[in-house]
C-alpha cells in the first residue's frame, strides 16, 4: 500500500544521485508518457522487445538497484504474465498448432501474440516504476505545481492526502486486530469478505474524519485562498530534463522503426 508513498531516501536500494534519478519529476512523467503512448499504438514483439532492451540499457543510470527493481516491479509482473498467458491460450489462433486441449489451443501465432502482450506491458510499465520510485512525492507535487503549472491548491491537497493515507497503515492493523477481538472475521470466505469490506469502510470513515481536521489545519495556516503563493523548494527544469525526454522520444522512435522494418508493426489506427 505504501509503495508510492514511501520515502525514497529511506530505501537503500535506490541511488538518488544517479543522473536520471535527479531529473525533474515532470520530465520523468513526460518521458514515461511518451514511451507509453508510442508503444500503445501497436502490439508486436519486435517493437516491444526493442523498447524493453533499450530501457534495460538505460537502467544503470536510473539509480534503481536490481533488488529494488524486483520488489517494485512485482505489480507489473502480476499484470503482464497472466495477460500474456491468457492471450496465448485463448487468443486468435494462427500458424502451426503447438498444443491443443479441447476447444483451446496454443498456436505459434497466439504464442507470439501472448509474448508481444507481455513484452509490451513490461516495456510500458517498467519505465513508470523505475522513474517514479526515485521521486519523492513532495518533489513531484512541487514540480507539478511549479513547472507544469497545475493549480497549487489541488496538487498540495492531493499530496497531503497521500501522506495521510500512508499513515493509515497502522490504523488498518489495529482494525484487523479489533475485528478478531470482537469475534468476527474467520468464518469462511464469504464472512471474511464481508468483514474485509466492513474494515475498508471503517478505514474510509477514519480517513475522511482525519481529512476534515487536516483541512482545518491547512486552512488555518493560510491555505486555500486564491492569492499567489511562494515556494520554499524550487522546482526548475535543467538541460538534463530535456535530455531525458529526448532520449525517451528517441527510444520510442527506434523501437517503432525496428517494428516497421521487421514488418511486424500493426497499428491500431491506420
Amino acid at each position, binding site marked *: 500500500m505504501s*509503495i508510492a508513498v514511501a520515502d525514497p531516501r529511506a530505501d537503500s536500494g535506490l541511488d538518488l544521485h544517479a543522473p536520471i534519478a535527479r531529473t525533474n519529476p515532470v520530465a520523468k512523467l513526460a518521458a514515461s508518457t511518451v514511451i507509453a503512448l508510442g508503444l500503445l499504438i501497436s502490439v508486436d514483439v519486435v517493437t516491444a522487445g526493442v523498447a524493453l532492451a533499450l530501457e534495460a540499457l538505460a537502467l544503470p543510470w536510473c539509480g534503481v538497484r536490481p533488488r529494488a527493481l524486483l520488489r517494485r516491479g512485482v505489480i507489473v509482473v502480476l499484470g503482464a504474465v497472466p495477460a500474456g498467458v491468457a492471450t496465448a491460450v485463448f487468443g486468435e489462433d494462427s500458424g502451426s498448432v503447438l498444443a491443443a486441449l479441447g476447444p483451446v489451443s496454443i498456436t505459434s501465432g497466439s504464442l507470439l501474440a501472448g509474448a508481444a502482450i507481455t513484452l509490451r506491458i513490461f516495456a510500458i510499465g517498467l519505465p513508470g516504476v523505475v522513474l517514479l520510485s526515485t521521486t519523492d512525492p513532495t518533489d513531484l507535487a512541487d514540480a507539478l505545481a511549479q513547472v507544469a503549472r497545475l493549480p497549487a491548491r489541488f496538487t498540495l491537497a*492531493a499530496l497531503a492526502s497521500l501522506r495521510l493515507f500512508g499513515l493509515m497503515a497502522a490504523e488498518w492493523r489495529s482494525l484487523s486486530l479489533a475485528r478478531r477481538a470482537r469475534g468476527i472475521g474467520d468464518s469462511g470466505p464469504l464472512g471474511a469478505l464481508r468483514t474485509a469490506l466492513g474494515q475498508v469502510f471503517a478505514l474510509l470513515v477514519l480517513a475522511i474524519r482525519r481529512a476534515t481536521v487536516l483541512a482545518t489545519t491547512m486552512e488555518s495556516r493560510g491555505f486555500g485562498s486564491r492569492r499567489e503563493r511562494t515556494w520554499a523548494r524550487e522546482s526548475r527544469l535543467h538541460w538534463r530534463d530535456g535530455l531525458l525526454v529526448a532520449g525517451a522520444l528517441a527510444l520510442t522512435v527506434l523501437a517503432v522503426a525496428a517494428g516497421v522494418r521487421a514488418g511486424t508493426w500493426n497499428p491500431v489506427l491506420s
Partner: protein
Amino acid sequence: MSTTRNDTDPLASPTGSSTELTEPSPTTSGRTVAVAVAVLAAIVGVAVYVVGLPDSPTMFGTPLAELTLPVALVIGLGGLWTAGGLVAARRSWRVVDIVVASVLGVAGGLLFAVWNANYETIKLPFAGFPPAAALLVGVWLLPGVLGGLVIRKPGAAVYTELVAAVVSALIGSQWGFSVVWYGLLEGMGPEVVLAVLLYRRFGLPTAVLAGIGAGAVVGVLDTLLYYPEFSSAWKLAYGGFAMVSGAVIAGVGSWALTRALAATGALAPLASGRTAARV
C-alpha cells in the same frame, strides 16, 4: 527586502478579499447564452447525424462513417454540459472539499491497485465471451461518481477520478501512465451528467445515470483502443455491459457508500452531510 501587498491597510477594506463567498446566480444574459449554446450544439449534432460522416478516413480500423452516431451524441451532450456549467450557481471549492475529494481519490487509487493486480485473473471466466468482461469496469468508475456525490461541486467527479488514476499509476500497473488520460475521460462521464442536472440532484437516479455515463465513456474508449478487432455486435455488447457495470457498481455502489458515510457523520462539514431540518 520588505514586501507590501498593497498600500492601504489590508484589514481596512473588505473588497478584494479571497474568502469564498457564494457567487450570485447567473444573470438573464448568462442564461440566454447557455440556452443558445445548448440549442446550437443540438442542431449541429442532429445535422451531423442526418448528413453522416464521410467514409474514407479510417480511424482505429473503422471507417469514420460508423462513428457518426457517437460523434453526434458527443457534440449534443457537450453542448448540454457547457450550458449546464454556465447556468449552475457556481460554488467554489473550500479547502475541506479539496482535501476530502483527494482522500477519496487516493482511496480509489488503492482500490485500483488491488483491482488491477487481480484483474487478469478475475477476467478469466469471461474468456468465452470477451465483451462480458466489460461487466468488471464499474470498479474503475466508482471514485468519479463517488466524488461527485460526496463533494457536490463542479469538477468533483473529474478530480476524484483523476487522483485515483494518478495514484494507481504511481503505484504501478500494467497500463503505465495511460490510465491517467483514461481517468480524466472517465471522470468526465459523470461530470456531464451532473452538469446537465445543474448540480442540484444527487439522489439514486442521478447516481445511476452518472454511472451509465461513465460506462459509456469506457465502452467507447476500450472498443477503440483495446478491442478494435471485435465485430460491431461485440462492440455494442461491450458498450452495453460497460454501461450496466457503471450503473450498478459505480452508480448504485457510490450512492449506497455515500449514504453509509453520511450516516456516520463523517461528511458533516460537506454539502452532502447537511440535512435541511434542524434537529
